[in-house]
Structures are given as C-alpha cells and as structure tokens.
C-alpha cells in the first residue's frame, strides 16, 4: 500500500516535470498546481492516515485548509480588482 502511494507520487512528479518543458500558456500553472494538490492529497490521506482518522480530526483538517483558501481568495479579490495599486 505505502509502496503504491510512493510510486504514484514519483510518477506524478515525473509527469509534472515533463509537462513543465512544454509551453501551454496559463495552463502550465493550472496543471502543475492540480498535480501538486493531488500529490498532497495522497500524502495526507494515506501517509498521514487521515482517511482512517476520526471524524473530528478530519473536520479539523478540512477547516484548516478551508481557512487557508478563504485567506487567499479574499486577499486576491482585493488585490486583483484594484489594478492601480
């Protein structure tokens, strides 16, 4: 099981490095970050056992990640809509 996750992570790293050599315009960032999120999810669910943790722990982790997105989204909604700054 752990080895399967390990090989998946290595394979995804190889894919993301390979893709970075092609010019996809803005898609480069989208693809690279999607793969990074996928890799992080694998690590959290299986290496960190969150899939098998209690409901309480899962909710706490989800809330933490949710707050990170709120911070990023609200800050960007300000900066990106005030181009004179």
């Amino acid at each position, binding site marked *: 099981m752990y080895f399967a996750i390990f090989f998946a992570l290595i394979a995804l790293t190889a894919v993301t490095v390979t893709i970075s050599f092609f010019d996809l315009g803005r898609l480069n960032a989208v693809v690279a970050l999607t793969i990074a999120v996928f890799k992080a999810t694998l*690590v959290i669910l299986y290496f960190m056992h969150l899939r098998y943790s209690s409901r309480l722990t899962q909710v706490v982790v989800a809330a933490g990640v949710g707050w990170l997105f709120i911070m990023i989204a609200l800050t960007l909604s300000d900066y990106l809509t005030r181009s004179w700054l």
Partner: protein
Amino acid sequence: MAENHAMTPHALAHHFDSLDQQREAGTLGMWVFLITEIMFFGGLFLTYILYRSKFPHEFVAGSHALDIRLGAFNTAVLIGSSLTMALAVYYSQVGSRRLLVTYLTLTMLLGLVFLGVKGIEYTEKFEHHHFPGADFQWEDPAQAPALDGNPGAGKVDGRHVEMFYWIYFAMTGLHALHMIIGAGLIAVLIVLAVRGRFTAEYHMPVEITGLYWHFVDIVWIFLFPLLYLIGRHE
C-alpha cells in the same frame, strides 16, 4: 498496580481513560499544530502569488536560473523519505524495534541528502550573487538574451528579480529549517527506539513525528512547482 503489569510502564498517561483516547488526543493535537504551520506557510504562499502577479517576467527570469534537475531530484528524495517514515510508523505499531530503527535511520539519511543538495543550490546562488541584499546582481538581460525562448528576457527589472529571490530564500530556508528540526527529532527517536522505549502499545512520538515529516514533504510538493516549474514559460 496489578492491572498495569500487562502494559508497558508509562504507556498510558494517567489523565487518559484508554490508549485509544490517548492516541486520538495526540493525533488531533498534532494536526492543530500543523494547521498553524499551514497558516504561516500560507502567508508566504500568498506573498508569492501577489508578487508573481505583479512581476511575472521577473519571476520567470528568476525561476529559469534555478536548477530543475536538482529540484526534481530533491522532490524524489523527499517522497522517498516520506515512504520510509510511513514504514517506520508501521513497524513501530507492530512493535518491531529493528525495522523501526532501520527505517528511522533511512528517513534521517534521506533528509540529510535533501539538505545537502539544498546546500549545493544555495552555494551556487551565493556565488552568482543571487542572494538578495547589497551583493545582489542580476546580469543585464540584453547581454544574456532569451534563455531557451524565455519571452520575459529584455524587459526584466533586476530589483524585481531580487524580490523573487527574497521569496525563494524565505520559503526554501524556512522549509530547510523544518527539515533540520525534523532530522533532529528523528535522531532523538532513533536513540529512544534503540533503548527500547517504543512498543506496539506505546509509539505515539513516532506517529506524531511522522505527521510532522509528511507535512514538511507536502510544503515541498507545492514549493517545487511554484519555484522551479511554472516559471519556465510565461
């Protein structure tokens, strides 16, 4: 006293009802700590996003000067160390002292390999005056044009490339500090494991350190594409 004899001494702290409850509390507490870590690394990621949207050409130029091979190698090393850490936690749960020590040692060695490669990268940056500060120099893009089709060449402001390197050194430096702390924690675990302090019943420190180690791996999983990969094109 008698009911404790079946159990390893001190496996269960007196303020917990059961080993399960103790384990649950420890895991939850560590995750709460890791969320505070997510938040302060998150602030740095936010800084990166804002400055990248402000100075896209400079970030592309700065990113081109990083060695993608070393970055990819280090990513693989860190993923490997996460595997050995996960195996160490597993063998602590089944109570195999020998394999626990083996995999903890492997994890620490891989962590040190990562730090060594990072040291090589940093040295190279210092030699090229890419460390931000009074010594920072960015060669005129007109003299070093179009690094493999870099469309940002020719309109790059060195001071803004310096900003990229501020963020690069702040984020990778903080990450490296976490790696050093993690390697130190694992060194302590190895000593404790050799002394037989961990059993199938009591192995919470190994699990907690494992969570920390995987978290540091996750931070790198995001740093690698942001700093090394997505700046290769506009």
